[in-house]
């Protein structure tokens, strides 16, 4: 089980709402929000995803001073470390991270999230299972359950994420 803090501020909510294409003023206009049912700026339904910014172990964010697996001079994937001469090995295309896709996401909302909330995020592993798929070879599924609690210890959101690792790139048909 991992735990970290997720302080919520108004600009973060505004940027997140913009990114999903939501121009509802309840996400950025404090004056307008006073007249709405929640009575304050609130976070849009999938906002807790932004907590990854604060997750010290989040793997999909470049770490300063460390190599990143996206492209720079080369397309990378970072794998073929020191390729030995005559080593005809196929390069591993970015390791399993390239094949890790998000299959499903569930949220249960207990309380609205507002600017100024100081959330504590705890994550734990849920179930895992395998399935033979037609489009992507053998698929391995695994669940991560994340609980978001506010400054008074009250549960605000429970999120369950299901990831899938596929044997090959998912075909488009």
């Amino acid at each position, binding site marked *: 089980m991992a735990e970290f803090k997720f302080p919520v501020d108004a600009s973060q909510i505004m940027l997140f709402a913009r990114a*999903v294409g939501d121009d509802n003023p309840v996400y950025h206009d404090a004056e307008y929000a006073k007249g709405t049912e929640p009575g304050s700026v609130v976070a849009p*339904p999938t906002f807790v995803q932004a907590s990854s910014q604060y997750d010290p172990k989040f793997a*999909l964010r470049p770490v300063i001073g460390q190599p990143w697996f996206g492209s720079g001079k080369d397309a990378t994937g970072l794998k073929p470390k020191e390729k030995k001469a005559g080593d005809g090995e196929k390069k591993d295309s970015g390791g399993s991270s390239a094949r890790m896709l998000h299959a*499903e996401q569930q949220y249960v*909302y207990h309380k609205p999230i507002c600017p100024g909330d100081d959330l504590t995020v705890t994550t734990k592993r849920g179930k895992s299972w395998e399935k033979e798929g037609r489009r992507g070879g053998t698929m391995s599924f695994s669940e991560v359950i994340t609980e978001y609690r506010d400054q008074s210890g009250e549960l605000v959101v429970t999120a369950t994420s299901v990831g899938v690792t596929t044997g090959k790139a998912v075909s488009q048909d």
Partner: protein
Amino acid sequence: MALKASELKVGDTHQQQVAENLSRTQIVQYAGASGDYMPLHTDERYAKEVAGYPGVFAHGMLSMGATGVMLTDWVGDGRLTKYSARFTRQVWPGDDLIAKATVTEIHEEDGHQVVELDLVTVNQDDQPVIAGKATARIDA
């Protein structure tokens, strides 16, 4: 404006276009806002040459977030109690997305009226990209 149980019935549908000609820039915006910088979504060279995809595609969570625009516009701010989505197909730059909700049940829970919704979000070719469910508190 919240929905009213007295004005809703099982089978009612609602839809809203939530993306039009989705841009690579919006995908980059989502990467920045969510903190998910997976290069599959933002790095064309990586997506093609390393991962073997035709190009970058949107985060599933961007499609779920966009579908949420239809939901909260319809059920009202702060009314959702549950929201889930399965990602059934990739969303590519240039796609249009239409999010649709169908009322499957209206009942009482903890003294509130509650509506259960089936969700599907389709692209311009009417292919589902998201299949989901949501629950919201509604007025009597």
